[in-house]
């Protein structure tokens, strides 16, 4: 027994054999809905963005070090794999930002009606797509 709570998880059948009690239904049992999927995505993009800060740190350290180091980082970011990472990072950041604003609205008690949180969820998805396209169009034109 790893945990004292394990004691609540075992029971005896009427014939005396020991068995585990059933757990409450978990994630895979429920039909995915926009609310649950966006919630999972918020956490997933948060974790991805944590990994993405390595890129931010590499960029700042290189800028403060030498032109050669900066060329190295810029070359990596400009490579096909680097651009893929940068694209994923931009989508994750824009999604986490927009859905984060949705969370902040909930924190002050706004948008809890059934229709409202579905609408705000759709708005976040559409906004993420639109803003990502705009950012990359402007970025590629500027580059």
């Amino acid at each position, binding site marked *: 027994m790893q945990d004292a709570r394990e004691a609540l998880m075992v029971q005896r059948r009427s014939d005396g054999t020991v068995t585990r009690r059933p757990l409450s239904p978990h994630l895979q049992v429920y039909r995915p809905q926009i609310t649950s999927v966006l919630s999972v995505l918020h956490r997933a993009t948060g974790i991805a963005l944590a990994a993405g*800060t390595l890129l*931010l740190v590499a960029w*700042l*350290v*290189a*800028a403060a070090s030498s*032109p050669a180091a900066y060329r190295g980082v810029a070359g990596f970011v400009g490579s096909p794999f680097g651009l893929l990472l940068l694209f994923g990072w931009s989508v994750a950041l824009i999604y986490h930002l927009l859905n984060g604003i949705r969370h*902040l609205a909930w924190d002050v008690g706004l948008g809890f009606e059934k229709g409202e949180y579905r609408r705000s969820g759709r708005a976040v998805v559409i906004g993420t797509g639109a803003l990502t396209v705009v950012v990359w169009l402007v970025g590629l034109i*500027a580059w």
Partner: protein
Amino acid sequence: MVAKNGDPIRTMRSPLGRVRGLGAARSGVAHWWAQRLTALALVPLSLWFIGSIIALAGADQAAAAHWAGHTVNAVLLLCLVLATFYHMQLGLQVVIEDYIHTEPSRLAALLATKSVVMLLALAALISVLRLAL
């Protein structure tokens, strides 16, 4: 229980529990508040940063260093780095506490995360300061 103005107090918490403000987790609401405040700060900072890196696309080291060395940009970069890594540490802490249930591995994961976050944040801060000073 009745408040001073005569209204009934609609809470299950004892007056002492309310004054202490620590809640059921015994650590208060500091974590929750810090996560929200850093989130709020990161809304304009992230938008500014996205705009800035678009403007810096294809720039060489001299141009990037010149941009980051400007006082306004350096101040905003320092704010961005502090808010980002604080927010990130708070978020990763919640994820670890949700999924790692055995105490030794949870403590190890929390300490490792905090250490890595601190090292990354310091590397970023020192770099910005080197460019700005």
